[in-house]
């Protein structure tokens, strides 16, 4: 990467937003790369020399004619996915400052969790990122298992992977649906996504008893076993998913309006993305090959073959495309897991549900949730409830770079860029 002075950097960012690569065919951009070989560089963005303030949002000067307008977008705004506010300073249509304001849904889940037993927080994790309750359960169970050293039976690991990937699939489908909705395509794409999501939620309901508030995983396994009939039904649903992705792909990927509005918008550079702790599809859209399923190989992911899609440009279109490709990879994972799932118990027979007191110590466990790295940090003092219970929320930390991505763009693009981050306020505010 060539070195740019901070001031030049800002101007580049600004110019970038003026020239959009509208109308270029998706084929010209090339498909997202598969996983690079072992010797390939992780990403080219890391430079040794960094100018002062390189990781701060740029200071954009107003053009001088006309007055500045301060707009509070939210907290009740259809595009904010809940109660979230962006205080935007506008110079005409151009965003020159953006301040996210959080806390409208804050209920101090961490404090509540420190006052109750370990297991009592499990149903509460469903309410963090309420689109993906299964992965929240998984992350918490994984952190506690790290703390106590419990083993998870083979079958439970397969069930976790199946449920986690179903969750990822429906999260990406609805997040794309929301993105297109915010672009102005009212209804149709979102309803297509929700039609598919409903099939997956039906599976969750028949397995756990609840569509969204599943409360399914336990420390050392899963709560109930899946019946052969459920597995057959899941295989049937999974067999239908590729058709849906193809349909979505045909409908959206080469849509001219979508390309015009998303390509070159909200560009996030790889080195800033890593420095700002951005994770998940957003990080990979910037071309950084970092998927915790591959890096940590938790559960049984190191036995499963799948590729990590990577973006080239780091714009909104790439984030959309990465999610689409990750849905395809999820289907690959699901097919393998559903084929190989062994028989056996779903709970560690030595696992204790009552009187559960981990030995003193601490552990940080993390998984690749659909939105990014979801981590739980637990400190035990030997008592029945955690001394410290911390959630690392991917939604909140991915918003760190929201201002950087929005500066210089039109206010209508802010809605899109925000939508491409893919957040859930239950997790941002906790």
């Amino acid at each position: 990467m060539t070195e740019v002075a901070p001031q030049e950097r800002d101007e580049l960012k600004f110019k970038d937003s003026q020239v959009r690569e509208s109308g270029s065919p998706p084929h010209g951009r090339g498909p997202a790369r598969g996983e690079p070989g072992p010797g390939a560089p992780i990403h080219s963005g890391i430079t040794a020399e960094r100018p002062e303030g390189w990781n701060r949002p740029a200071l954009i000067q107003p053009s001088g004619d006309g007055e500045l307008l301060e707009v509070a977008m939210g907290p009740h705004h259809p595009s904010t996915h809940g109660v979230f506010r962006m205080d935007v300073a506008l110079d005409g249509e151009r965003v020159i400052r953006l301040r996210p304001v959080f806390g409208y849904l804050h209920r101090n889940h961490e404090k509540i969790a420190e006052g109750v037993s370990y297991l009592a927080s499990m149903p509460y994790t469903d309410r963090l990122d309420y689109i993906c309750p299964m992965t929240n359960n998984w992350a918490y169970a994984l952190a506690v298992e790290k703390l106590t050293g419990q083993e998870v039976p083979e079958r439970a690991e397969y069930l976790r992977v199946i449920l986690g990937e179903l969750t990822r699939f429906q999260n990406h489908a609805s997040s794309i649906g929301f993105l297109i909705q915010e672009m102005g395509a009212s209804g149709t794409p979102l309803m297509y996504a929700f039609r598919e999501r409903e099939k997956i939620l039906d599976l969750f309901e028949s397995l756990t008893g609840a569509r969204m508030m599943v409360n399914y995983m336990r420390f050392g396994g899963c709560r109930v076993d899946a019946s052969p009939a459920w597995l057959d039904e899941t295989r049937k649903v999974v067999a239908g998913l590729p058709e849906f992705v193809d349909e979505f792909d045909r409908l959206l990927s080469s849509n001219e309006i979508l390309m015009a509005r998303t390509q070159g918008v909200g560009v996030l550079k790889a080195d800033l993305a890593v420095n700002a702790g951005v994770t998940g599809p957003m990080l990979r859209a910037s071309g950084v090959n970092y998927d915790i399923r591959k890096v940590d190989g938790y559960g049984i992911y190191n036995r499963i073959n799948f590729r990590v899609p990577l973006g080239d440009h780091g714009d909104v279109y790439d984030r959309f495309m990465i999610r689409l490709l990750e849905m395809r990879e999820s289907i690959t994972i699901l097919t393998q897991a559903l084929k190989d799932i062994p028989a056996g118990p779903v709970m560690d027979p030595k696992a204790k549900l009552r009187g559960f007191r981990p030995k003193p110590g601490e552990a940080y466990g993390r998984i690749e949730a659909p939105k990014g790295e979801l981590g739980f940090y637990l400190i035990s003092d030997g008592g029945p409830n955690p001394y410290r219970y911390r959630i690392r929320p991917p939604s909140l930390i991915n918003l760190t770079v929201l201002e950087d991505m929005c500066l210089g763009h039109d206010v209508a693009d802010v809605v899109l860029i925000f939508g491409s981050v893919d957040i859930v306020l239950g997790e941002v505010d906790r």
Partner: protein
Amino acid sequence: MKTVEEIKAAIEAAVPGAAVEIVTNPSVSGQHSLRLAPECAVAVATFLRDDPEIALDYLSNVTGIDWPDKEITEKVKVARQVTKTVEDLEKEVDETVEETRKRLEPGCLEAVYHLYSVAKKHGPVVVRMRTIDRAEQVELPSLTPIWRSAEFQEREIFDLYGIVFTGHPDLRRLLMWEGFKDHPMRRDYREPDDFEYEPTAHDEVLKRATEHQAGTAAQTTAGGS
């Protein structure tokens, strides 16, 4: 990946005068941590990020912990000379007596950083810093200039725990509203009686609020929060 001992040695070789202490973690997770002295934290953090071997370019998780003042009661065996009368003779006899002693271990606030490397794909390296006490000297250097991902998380710690991060570009409350007084994640936090920031004008509520505020004020002077 290097062990904490190797990282400690590397830090001490590269940053002169850095005070680093290894905190062992008794849990099976084996995630031991390094406690940095706040004075050298920025230099050490820059080294950890930029060193080509360690290359911890990704700061994943930042969080606070509250360690309140602890009253420790311990039994100490003390040897002392006691005068005893044995067979009508006064003698000085050595005797071991058990004594109960109480001492107050001052509390502190702690910030914990979980670091990973995207370039080398290793981690986590856990780094922690402690404030001097919980009331007055609650300042720690901010690592936001080094890792941007600390920006919102340090604001959250400032909000919920009250650690003041010096050098943070935009240190405001994150989740609670502006004008909120206390730090809810502290162990001795008292919830408001009516859960309303501004008490309504009803007599009963106003009375309860006054009582509550008196209670909080008394606690503030006593507990120093």
